[in-house]
């Protein structure tokens, strides 16, 4: 069973007959209700290829994976084939397994509390006797030891997975994925598997993956870490808004900046930079903020100024925005917010304090538009009006009577300002499209006429029209004197909105961009920092 007789990957990566593709996806679409989340997806992976799949949140990556693994039924008309044999749709998990398709989920999908062999054989246990139906532990252990030997790692099959090193855990996950593969065949889908791994562990993980690929296994690697996609994959496919933008571009021809451009697209050609609304009066300040990798961050924000925070995953840009918005407790730091009632004398909020709600921030005029709109922003089962007015229901209502008038007025104002559709204040939020939900979320905070507006990925996974309305609304808030902080990886948004952009890397601001910003300039500053490891491959 040793690894080698399969030898080199299939020679013809350029050849194009269906026979030679390990995985071929053609014309796959998926519609949820009225929302088309995947449109005519086509994707081909050659034997022995490491293929990357990238795209922003909400672009349809996870939906595609769920179709490949049989969780979702694709719309009629598509086809998925493995080694030239088409699978029945919806994909039947056992059939996919027999064809050699396996998946490694986020954080490897292991049960820490159970032993190595139990984890590897989970779902495949064979019984020893017809009568007792007990698991044949001896045979199972032997089978697992064999698979691990194939991988060239030595792990005691009886160890609890929780006690293993990150590296060995990865090996266990890979062993589970390849155990049913025929020699020289098989496809593993890694779905954000490396998210929780450190840099070293990741390096060794990909060493292992490479050795598997060398035996002829194909890999579909889905990852947010563009760096690792560029480094380890052979070719890459980019999804945007449920469509394939580019498929099978050789990775040696692109870099992270190029991938980012493809992921974001240039859908903002219609949007030109507006005039800056920054006035010469301070509206907010951050002093000595320490949160996550960020150690000592200061920022002064003027009335009507829009400041962008950006950087790769883990750079600290997101943590700063969350701390300032009241969503994350910082280690220390102070936020100063101008108090309009008291002629602009700043109000002080200690960011290191433990709080059971963001009440203090809201009272000071801080509004935080969270990234995950249905987990942090809106309650899906409540109506548009109820969600919109929630932050002010106590301050504007009497304790005995919330009062319908101001709620209706506020809701109507935001529905028309942001063009929320359908324009029904009593629509349940969960039934709205993503773009309209995002508008409700923005309206929820704009209706409070904040002094400081903090936004995290305000246009993520929304359609072009919603994006237009959202950008206009943010500009309008700035024009009215609101200070705005936007944390985003979307360089296009930042370029059209911001007066200046702070680029974070490893917890520090490495570049400050100002003046006439362009998308390319911001992407270059984010990814192009010289001295970054791993450019060579």
């Amino acid at each position, binding site marked *: 069973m040793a690894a080698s007789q399969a030898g080199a990957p299939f020679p013809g990566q350029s050849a194009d007959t269906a026979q030679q593709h390990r995985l071929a996806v053609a014309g796959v679409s998926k519609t949820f209700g009225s929302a088309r989340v995947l449109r005519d997806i086509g994707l081909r992976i050659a034997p022995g290829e490491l293929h990357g799949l990238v795209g922003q949140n909400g672009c349809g990556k996870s939906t595609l994976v769920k179709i490949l693994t049989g969780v979702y039924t694709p719309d009629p008309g598509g086809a998925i084939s493995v080694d030239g044999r088409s699978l029945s749709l919806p994909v039947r998990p056992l059939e996919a397994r027999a064809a050699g398709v396996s998946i490694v989920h986020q954080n490897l999908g292991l049960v820490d509390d159970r032993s190595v062999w139990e984890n590897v054989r989970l779902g495949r246990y064979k019984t020893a006797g017809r009568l007792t139906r007990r698991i044949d532990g001896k045979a199972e252990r032997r089978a697992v030891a064999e698979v691990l030997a194939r991988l060239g790692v030595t792990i005691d099959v009886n160890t609890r997975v929780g006690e293993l090193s990150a590296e060995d855990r990865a090996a266990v996950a890979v062993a589970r994925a390849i155990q049913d593969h025929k020699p020289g065949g098989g496809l593993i889908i890694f779905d954000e598997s490396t998210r929780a791994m450190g840099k070293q562990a990741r390096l060794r993980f990909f060493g292992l993956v490479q050795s598997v690929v060398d035996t002829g296994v194909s890999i579909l690697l889905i990852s947010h870490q563009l760096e690792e996609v560029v480094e380890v994959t052979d070719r890459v496919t980019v999804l945007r808004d449920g469509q394939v933008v580019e498929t099978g571009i050789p990775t040696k021809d692109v870099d992270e900046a190029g991938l980012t451009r493809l992921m974001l697209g240039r859908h903002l050609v219609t949007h030109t930079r507006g005039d800056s609304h920054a006035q010469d009066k301070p509206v907010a300040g951050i002093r000595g903020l320490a949160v996550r990798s960020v150690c000592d961050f200061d920022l002064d924000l003027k009335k009507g100024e829009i400041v962008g925070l950006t950087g790769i995953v883990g750079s600290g840009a997101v943590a700063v925005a969350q701390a300032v*918005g*009241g*969503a994350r407790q910082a280690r220390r730091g102070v936020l100063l917010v101008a108090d309009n009632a008291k002629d602009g004398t700043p109000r002080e909020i200690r960011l290191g304090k433990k709080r*059971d*709600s*963001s*009440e203090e*921030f*809201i*009272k000071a005029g801080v509004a*935080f538009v*969270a990234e995950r709109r249905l*987990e*942090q*922003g*809106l*309650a*899906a*089962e*409540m*109506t548009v*009006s*109820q969600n919109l007015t*929630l*932050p002010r*229901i*106590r301050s504007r*209502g009497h*304790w*005995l*009577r*919330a009062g*319908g*008038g101001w*709620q*209706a*007025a506020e*809701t*109507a104002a935001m*529905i028309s300002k942001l063009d929320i559709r*359908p*324009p*029904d*204040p*009593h629509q*349940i939020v*969960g*039934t709205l499209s993503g773009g309209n939900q995002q508008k409700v979320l923005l309206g*929820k905070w704009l209706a409070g006429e904040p002094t400081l507006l903090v936004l995290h990925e305000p246009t993520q996974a929304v359609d072009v029209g919603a994006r237009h309305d959202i950008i206009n609304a943010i500009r309008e808030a700035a024009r009215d004197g609101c200070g705005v902080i936007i944390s985003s990886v979307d360089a296009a948004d930042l370029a059209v909105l911001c007066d200046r952009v702070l680029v974070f890397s490893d917890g520090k601001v490495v570049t400050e961009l100002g003046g006439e910003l362009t998308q390319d300039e911001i992407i270059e500053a984010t990814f192009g920092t010289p001295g970054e490891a791993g450019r060579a491959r």
Partner: protein
Amino acid sequence: MTDAEQDANHATVTRAPGHSRRSRAFGRQSLSARFAILVVWAALIVVYSFTEPALFPHTGTYQTIFGSQQPLVFMTMALMCTIVVGEFVDLSVPAVFGFAATILPVLVVNHNVGVWPASLVAIVAAVLVGLVQGLLVVKLNVNTIVVTLGMSTLLEGVSLWMSNESTISGLPSSFGSIATRDVGGLPVDFYYGLALVLIFAYLLWATPLGRHMRFVGASREVSRLSGVRVDRIRLGAFVSAGLLSGLGGVIAAAALGGYDATTADSFLLPTFAAVFLSTAILEPGRFNPLGTLLGIYFLATGILGLQLLGLQAWVSQVFYGGILVIAVTISTLLRRRSS
């Protein structure tokens, strides 16, 4: 949100033409979901009136149905406190109720304490139990099932010990009149229950506190980031549940002139059945007080009718259990359709 409020607010917002037609159709569809159980209730009454013409259609029957459910009304409202804020399994309500209902006669009859101080002690004890449970669940993050199941068993044990495992009776009948005085053919505690339900419904419908409770139940993280003091509201819910259980217990003991501590746990399933049934009445897919009240009387009607037909006491278990499963299934389906 009720129809009335929706209609009031609709008027103030201009809508795109063409949309209103769709929403009216939607309204009609949900109208049938709202009142389906009430139609079944009416059908039950008609059927029983024909099958049991001699026994069922009499004032006495209605007095039994509406005059005998007060303990359940208080217990369901107590359970509603925690369920609305997202704690689905407070199993301790009947035990806290029984605890308060046992303390009162034990103090009065066995220890010669005055009825009013004894009532106060019983209610305070119930509130304290709620507070302890709330602190365990909210501050220490202990699993709600474990806390309330353990507490409920413990309290039942303590109640049995206090009462020497026997019925304690002998509360003064003058005290009993706070619960049993006849008002318009029904005992006065029927109106206490009705008032409680109406106040609770108003709280959820129209006050900022009620809105906060609903949001905490819908999503703690969203509420926290919107300035709602989530932990305080959850803790408050447990304390209020204790208070309502205690009040209900005292009123029940007053009405009966004493209490049998062994009866408390038989209320557990009916309490859950009625509260879950409310998700299929008036506000489909959502726990609501008025729906719960209607649910209680619907269940009482069904059971009384079956008993009049000559079926034995076991029928109430079959009925409550069956309705619980059916109601939850219906409301789950309704919720799935709406999302």
